[in-house]
């Protein structure tokens, strides 16, 4: 259970696939005009990621390493087709809004990266948990970006009016240019936080080194005193 929580935190915050690993930029930029679309995209990719991680992990001993990428792509595209058909049957408006980006989950680098880096080396259960963690991390990042773009660009959040009518709608944030710039500022903020954390860790390390050094120095001085005595 503790390991599960740790993996979850790793996927959503410390090692977020979009904000930290900078993977999967196409759907991140394209589907974040509305929070609803971002949720749909994130959950669709999560479903594919969990299934593909499970199956690749189960088949990891049978897939020859020379053709592994092709095998992964076939497994992933099978699940993508299933998700696409399910969404067309049950969430038609979302299916239409996301358009080509549902079949394009096949070439989403996050899914292939997790298959190659994690599922092909680990047992089924941890691989499924990794799929959940990374998928939720992807969804979290998409919803974060979409929140900024929808609130500033349309004055709504998940369809509900957030900003008063008198507030001017900045259509810029709905346009492609707004996607690039919003993501740029959010990643800059993440880098700022990470730089700060790294700096604090470095200072802590320096302080502990200094304390150790002083302690050693004191010890030596005491030894010297003893010798003279």
């Amino acid at each position, binding site marked *: 259970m503790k390991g599960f929580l740790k993996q979850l935190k790793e996927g959503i915050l410390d090692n977020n696939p979009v904000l930290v690993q*900078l*993977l*999967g*930029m*196409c759907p991140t*930029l*394209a589907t974040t005009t509305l929070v609803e679309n971002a949720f749909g995209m994130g959950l669709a990719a999560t479903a594919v990621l969990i299934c593909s991680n499970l199956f690749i992990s189960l088949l990891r001993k049978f897939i020859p390493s020379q053709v592994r*990428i*092709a095998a992964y*792509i*076939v497994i992933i*595209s*099978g699940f*993508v*087709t299933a998700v*696409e*058909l399910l969404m067309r049957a049950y969430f038609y408006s979302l299916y239409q809004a996301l358009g*080509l980006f549902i*079949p*394009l989950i*096949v*070439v*989403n*680098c996050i899914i*292939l990266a997790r298959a190659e880096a994690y599922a092909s080396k680990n047992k089924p259960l941890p691989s499924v948990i990794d799929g959940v963690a990374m998928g939720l991390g992807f969804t979290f990042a998409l919803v974060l970006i979409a929140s900024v773009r929808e609130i500033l660009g349309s004055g709504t959040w998940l369809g509900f009016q957030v900003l008063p009518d008198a507030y001017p709608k900045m259509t810029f944030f709905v*346009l*492609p*240019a*707004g*996607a*690039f*710039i919003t*993501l*740029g*500022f959010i*990643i*800059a*903020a993440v*880098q*700022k936080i990470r*730089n700060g954390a790294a700096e604090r860790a470095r200072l802590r390390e320096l302080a502990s080194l200094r304390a150790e050094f002083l302690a050693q120095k004191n010890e030596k001085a005491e030894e010297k005193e003893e010798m003279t005595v």
Partner: protein
Amino acid sequence: MSFGSILLMMFSAILVENFIFAKFYGCCPFLGVSEHPDTALGMGMAVTFVMTVSGGVTWAVYEFLLVPAKLEYLKTVAFILVIAALVQFIEMFLRRFIPTLYQALGIYLPLITTNCAVLSAALLTVQNGYSFIEAICFGLASALGFTLAITVFAGVRSRMAHANPPEAFKGFPLTLIAAGLLAMAFSCFSGIQF
């Protein structure tokens, strides 16, 4: 479709519906392989080559294999396999017969399999119901739009290398913001109506 309307379709695919700045297809290589104008042009040429050929091949696979067998819903699986095989085949063909071109494009070819621009061009061709000639022209034009975007952006980035941004913006965020400014410039084409 007449010659004139094909030209219009190509013009629209290159500028108005630019794959990067209007549709976001192929953003990974656009952001990843655009540090130097030379490599960006190499990547753009490799993509152009593959997308033109794959436009025709995936059209043929769809019309002559999937439609008669009533397997249209398998198009994503079929197209990605065709593209992967095609990239592999082009790589071997170039190495054997046109070594100079292979030397120029070789290192970019394996990256193209997972470039979503190629797959989305194939899927859009089916969605819009293009004919064989139109499919090839659409692949070529979309790829030219991609090449234009990545080459111009590489020029911007090579100038930016000497800039001194705030610490937090170093690297990727600054690249994204420059791409946003370029997207703004490209968005002026969207006012053109045919």
